[in-house]
């Protein structure tokens, strides 16, 4: 049998797990997103063909009345007139999913508009029972079916329980995979500050980065020790084999925060009874995070990163998929407030076909800039958010806002979509809009954002922009720790300005999840902290200890870090 070999990297997500190696393909990202080429046309054609095949299979199994409707949908998909506007958008440079979603949305709008215009005038057939109005519903249904077919195509999954071995891992691949059967991640490059590392920690998937050479051939057993930052090939040759593909120890949060004892059970009540009444909220990245979240133990959800919930362009452009996810979260929270952040794309957060992965875009198009540049995408999400707000207490966060005019433009977009839904008779509530405070220019001019109903400080991005040190570049990682003085001065300014505006500030970056920082954040007067479900216990305990006097100063607090 092959000899055991050990590799050393850096820990990115604690825990140990073993499984067969799955080697990620090293070829460049598929050209699915090629905006002008025949690829977008081919992708659309393939998705349409798949949707037609599904509908035919359904039609064959259905009662005659349903079959009639399905035949109608098939006929629509076979109609070149329906696809022509989408193909025209593709020739103008749009990706397949965006072109199709936007063209169908236009078509639905047109149909709904015609219905409401002719509705009353036409006594016999007008109104909601209008046989001709069925079309809008059918087109919406088709839109979702084709986008689903497109999403299915872009998912390159790997066997459950295996160890993903590659240079790096796109968040969408992580999110498309079912981790409930165990498994781990071993990356040649990568960073513990990357989004995928954050996802792995939240999900309890052991992960090691920075291994350099990639260990193992497909199928070889690999043990990943995300706590020690090492991986071991054929470990069974040396030590008693752990049960394959099962995490040996999950989470191990005490490794990351060795100073913090697990919360005393009385801590939660102590905090909620405290005069400060600081809220403790959870961050949600995937619907699976809900399983680990006891809604009774939190004040709500402070941040839903929707770009992780909807990990492909086809899903992100599918209003019903958005709504289905939001509905799940709202149902789980049972009436507690939920803050949903609009798609924060750019940087390493790509949606192939819509937004390509590009490290340079960290200082380019990302967050609200992308939403404003792709109003079709923003409108789809805005509609889903407005519809979700009719189901429960929803607030909406805008990512990467730099100027008040960006907030104003999005506010207008929400007003327009709320009016459009009302015209179409779809229930909705225009949710309050807040902004992420993560661009220093916004942080320093917070008093100008009077339209914002609340603020949420994204400390990870704010720090990277403040220190001019990329969050996923290990060679400058030390600057983040040492620039903390600047960070706390700015946080102080943010909290003071927000108080004058009478708007709440919460903190949702990694800083909020560090028990040693919690006391100082409380002292600044934040209204809430929002952290990954796995960090709730530690932060709850730190909150129970109360605010740390500001006099302790940045230097005093930093020595522990």
């Amino acid at each position, binding site marked *: 049998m092959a000899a055991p070999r050990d590799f050393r990297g850096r820990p990115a997500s604690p825990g140990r797990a073993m499984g067969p190696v799955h080697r990620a393909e090293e070829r460049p990202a598929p050209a699915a997103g090629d905006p002008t080429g025949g690829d977008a046309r081919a992708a659309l054609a393939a998705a349409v063909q798949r949707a037609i095949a599904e509908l035919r299979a359904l*039609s064959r199994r259905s009662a005659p009345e349903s079959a009639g409707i399905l035949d109608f949908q098939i006929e629509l998909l076979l109609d070149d007139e329906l696809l022509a506007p989408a193909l025209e958008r593709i020739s103008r440079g749009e990706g397949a999913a965006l072109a199709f979603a936007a063209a169908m949305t236009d078509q639905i709008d047109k149909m709904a508009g015609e219905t409401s215009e002719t509705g009353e005038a036409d006594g016999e*057939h007008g109104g909601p029972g209008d046989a001709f109005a069925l079309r809008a519903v059918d087109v919406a249904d088709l839109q979702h079916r084709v986008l689903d077919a497109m999403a299915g195509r872009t998912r390159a999954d790997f066997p459950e329980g295996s160890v993903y071995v590659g240079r790096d891992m796109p968040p969408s691949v992580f999110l498309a995979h079912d981790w409930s059967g165990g498994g781990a991640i071993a990356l040649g490059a990568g960073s513990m500050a990357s989004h995928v590392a954050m996802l792995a920690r939240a999900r309890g998937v052991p992960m090691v980065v920075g291994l350099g050479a990639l260990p193992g051939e497909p199928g070889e057993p690999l043990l990943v020790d995300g706590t020690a930052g090492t991986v071991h090939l054929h470990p069974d040759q040396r030590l008693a084999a752990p049960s394959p593909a099962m995490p040996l120890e999950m989470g191990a949060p005490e490794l990351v925060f060795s100073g913090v004892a697990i919360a005393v059970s009385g801590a939660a009540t102590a905090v909620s009874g405290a005069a400060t009444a600081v809220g403790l909220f959870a961050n949600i990245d995937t619907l699976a995070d809900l399983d680990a979240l006891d809604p009774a133990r939190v004040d709500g959800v402070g941040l839903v990163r929707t770009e992780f919930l909807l990990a492909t362009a086809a899903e992100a452009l599918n209003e019903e998929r958005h709504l289905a996810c939001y509905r799940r979260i709202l149902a789980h929270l049972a009436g507690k407030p939920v803050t949903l952040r609009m798609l924060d794309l750019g940087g390493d957060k790509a949606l192939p076909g819509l937004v390509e992965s590009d490290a340079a875009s960290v200082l380019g198009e990302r967050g609200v800039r992308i939403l404003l540049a792709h109003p079709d995408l923003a409108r789809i999400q805005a509609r889903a958010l407005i519809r979700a707000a009719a189901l429960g207490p929803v607030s909406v966060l805008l990512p990467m806002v730099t100027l008040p005019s960006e907030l104003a433009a999005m506010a207008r977009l929400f007003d327009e979509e709320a009016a459009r839904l009302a015209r179409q008779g779809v229930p909705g509530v225009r949710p309050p809009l807040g902004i992420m405070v993560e661009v220093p220019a916004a942080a320093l001019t917070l008093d100008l954002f009077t339209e914002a109903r609340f603020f949420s400080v994204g400390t990870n991005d704010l720090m990277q922009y403040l220190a001019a040190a990329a969050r996923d570049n290990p060679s400058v990682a030390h600057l983040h720790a040492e620039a903390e003085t600047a960070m706390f001065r700015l946080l102080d300014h943010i909290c003071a300005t927000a108080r004058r505006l009478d708007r709440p500030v919460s903190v949702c970056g990694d800083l909020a999840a560090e028990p040693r920082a919690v006391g100082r954040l409380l002292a600044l007067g934040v209204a809430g902290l929002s952290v990954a479900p796995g960090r709730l216990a530690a932060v709850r305990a730190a909150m129970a200890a109360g605010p740390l006097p500001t006099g302790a100063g940045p230097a005093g607090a930093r020595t522990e870090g």
Partner: protein
Amino acid sequence: MAEFLPVIGRPSAHRCQTEVEVTHGVGLHARPSVAFTRLAKTFPCTIEVAVDGSADWLNGKSIVKIIGARIRRGTRMRIRAEGARAEEAIAALSELVRRDFDEDRKAGRADGRVDGRPA
């Protein structure tokens, strides 16, 4: 009532037109429209439809166009065809409208075919 209008200078089979009144239920909603366009697509000639004296000729093979025309009961529908088997197409389509799209005969398969079939 269909009158076949030969076009000057071309063999009569290549271009035809007729007019027929829609007598079916509410009109050309989803199912009748499917029957109409599916039948239209079985012919190689172009097929166009205009309603109630409108000069707008719509592609008779496009369900988007046909259903978008909101062709209600009582509408006078003009159908014209040009190209191979035009005469046959006009006869078949106007018959389909007169038979109320075979709605009673074969529910869900108004064109009488066994399976939905691409163009």
